[in-house]
């Protein structure tokens, strides 16, 4: 960006001068910008204002126009930063974002690579099917996943785990009968205690969140990565083959670098979305057990709705928006998204 160089300044001045080419750009961008500001920036500004007042109830928020709130400046923020739950929440949220992103990336890559692979018949139809999760309302899907992760023994996931246990035991027995002289103790380690308490255990619940989040977000990433994969120049693969690279090496040295831009782009967007996830923890077990898995927005929501601390919750949201803003800003800086993918 040429901003502070003399040319930059010159350019800026020139661009400010009335000239049809410049004007029309502004005119075209302006409506969208105004609409966006009206409906998004303005509420954010309002939120920031709320966060420095002492409003506690819904009624007060609405009454704020009648000047019923007093300004307490940073009291809410100070209180927030002093709250251990808040820091726990921040930690869990980042962990959640990180782990689910990792899982999403792996899953997305596997799906996308499979569904663009030459050897897969009917891949176009499969690609259409695989993004079906995008069509359901999140609240519904999350409830379904909550049921899948039911801690009851007959919960679908618990059934899966039981089935897995059966397979392990079966295999162990098989090995045992074939090689009877081997004292086989390994299965104990491989077995899982059923039923798993998916909502009662902190990490079990966390696992449930991550799986659900991944399921919700992968279609978006798959669409983008599939599109990117279709654009990888065949010639690069040919060059790598001739250079002696096998499938995995080509994946690592040709495919992945070629789709890196879109992949990073999709990652950043879903990471930012999952940072703000509310419904998953809320529907699963309200960020439980206890408050151990409260993602940031659940924390904020609790403050607002349950404890009637609207100002506090606004402060939390401001912090959340700050985090996302910072995250996006860094991401954009690092990856040059502003110039395209």
């Amino acid at each position, binding site marked *: 960006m040429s901003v502070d160089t003399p040319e930059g300044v010159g350019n800026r001045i020139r661009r400010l001068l009335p000239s049809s080419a410049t004007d*029309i750009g502004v005119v075209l*961008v302006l409506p969208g910008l105004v609409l966006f500001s009206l409906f998004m920036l303005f509420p*954010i500004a*309002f939120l920031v204002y709320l966060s420095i007042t002492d409003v506690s109830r819904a009624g007060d928020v609405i009454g704020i126009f009648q000047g019923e709130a007093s300004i307490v400046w940073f009291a809410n923020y100070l209180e927030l930063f002093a709250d251990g739950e808040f820091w726990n929440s921040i930690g869990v949220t980042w962990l959640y974002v990180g782990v689910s992103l990792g899982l999403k990336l792996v899953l997305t890559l596997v799906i996308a690579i499979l569904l663009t692979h030459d050897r897969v018949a009917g891949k176009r139809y499969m690609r259409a*099917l*695989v993004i*079906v999760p995008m069509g359901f309302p999140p609240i519904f899907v999350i409830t379904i996943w909550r049921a899948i992760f039911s801690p009851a023994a007959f919960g679908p996931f618990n059934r899966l785990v039981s089935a897995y246990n059966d397979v392990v035991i079966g295999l162990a027995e098989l090995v045992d009968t074939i090689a009877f002289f081997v004292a086989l103790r390994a299965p104990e380690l491989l077995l899982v205690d059923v039923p798993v308490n998916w909502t009662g255990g902190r990490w079990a619940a966390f696992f449930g969140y991550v799986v659900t989040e991944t399921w919700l977000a992968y279609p978006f990433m798959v669409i983008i990565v599939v599109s990117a994969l279709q654009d990888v120049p065949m010639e690069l693969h040919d060059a790598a083959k001739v250079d002696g690279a096998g499938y995995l090496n080509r994946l690592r040295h040709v495919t992945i670098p070629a789709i890196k831009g879109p992949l990073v782009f999709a990652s950043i967007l879903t990471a930012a979305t999952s940072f703000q996830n509310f419904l998953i923890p809320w529907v699963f077990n309200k960020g439980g057990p206890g408050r151990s898995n409260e993602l940031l*927005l659940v924390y904020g929501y609790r403050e607002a709705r349950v404890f009637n601390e609207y100002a506090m919750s606004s402060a939390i949201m401001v912090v959340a928006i700050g985090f996302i803003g910072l995250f996006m800003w860094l991401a954009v800086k690092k990856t040059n998204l502003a110039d395209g993918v």
Partner: protein
Amino acid sequence: MSTILDAIADLRAGRRSPVDVAKSVLTTGVAVGLLLLLLFPVYWIVTVALSRGTTLSSPGSLFGDPAAYTLDSFRWVLENESFRRGLLNSLIVVTVTVTVTLAFSIPGAYALSRREFFGRRKLLYGYILFTQVGAGLSIAVLIALYALFSGIGLTNNLLVLGLFYAAGAIPFNTWLLKTFMDNIPVSYEEAAIVDGASQWQVMREVILPLAKPGIAAVLVFAWTAGWNEFIVAQTLIHDPDLYPLSVELYGLIDDRRGTSWPQFAAFALLFALPVAIIYFLAQKQVESGLSFGGMEG
């Protein structure tokens, strides 16, 4: 399909070795397996919608008793007055969202892609920064939002709701479309200008048709944004006659009295249908719209 037939023909003619064909069958098998695994919840939802009773999970067979499958729940949804009303309302909202998003983001994207103007880069940054803020914003500040909107009398209005979604969708979609337009060679546009086309004609005759894949992607994203959202809808709409489908759907979840899951599942499936249709229709366009690759000159 033709891939398979070709493979068989090739195998017969000895042009492909059995090993080669086996490899294809195996990879396809892996893909299908993965797909089945991923779509398990969807399959489950379908069986729930077909089941009798009211519960989602059941200690018996996971998928209920196929012999007892019934379409009652779907019938219930379709005959349900609020479904039909909600559908209409949702269509209104989504039409507004999609139209406004397209109407605002196409020119915006064009300007960002093709024109140099003061603050262009800052705006691009801003847009990307804010692409993801909208969603989370709505949850904790519902009251604030409501206070704002009711203060200026904009509650209970489907147009305003649609506009709100559009506002949230504009940054991301503008940026997406801008990225797409960056890859449309300028020479088409110049050819049209030299041919005597005005700015507007260039837009209509050249840019719009060429940006179709990008526009299709935006359409799908804007559509899902307007269609699936319910929290803001519920906050800004108090008149049950104006509830969009998502709010009606959410209303079926009754914490106190229990939810009738087959009905809920049937409702959700019907709810998801339009999105699925739109996507199937636009799939090819969307996939190339998101490819971020070059367009042939």
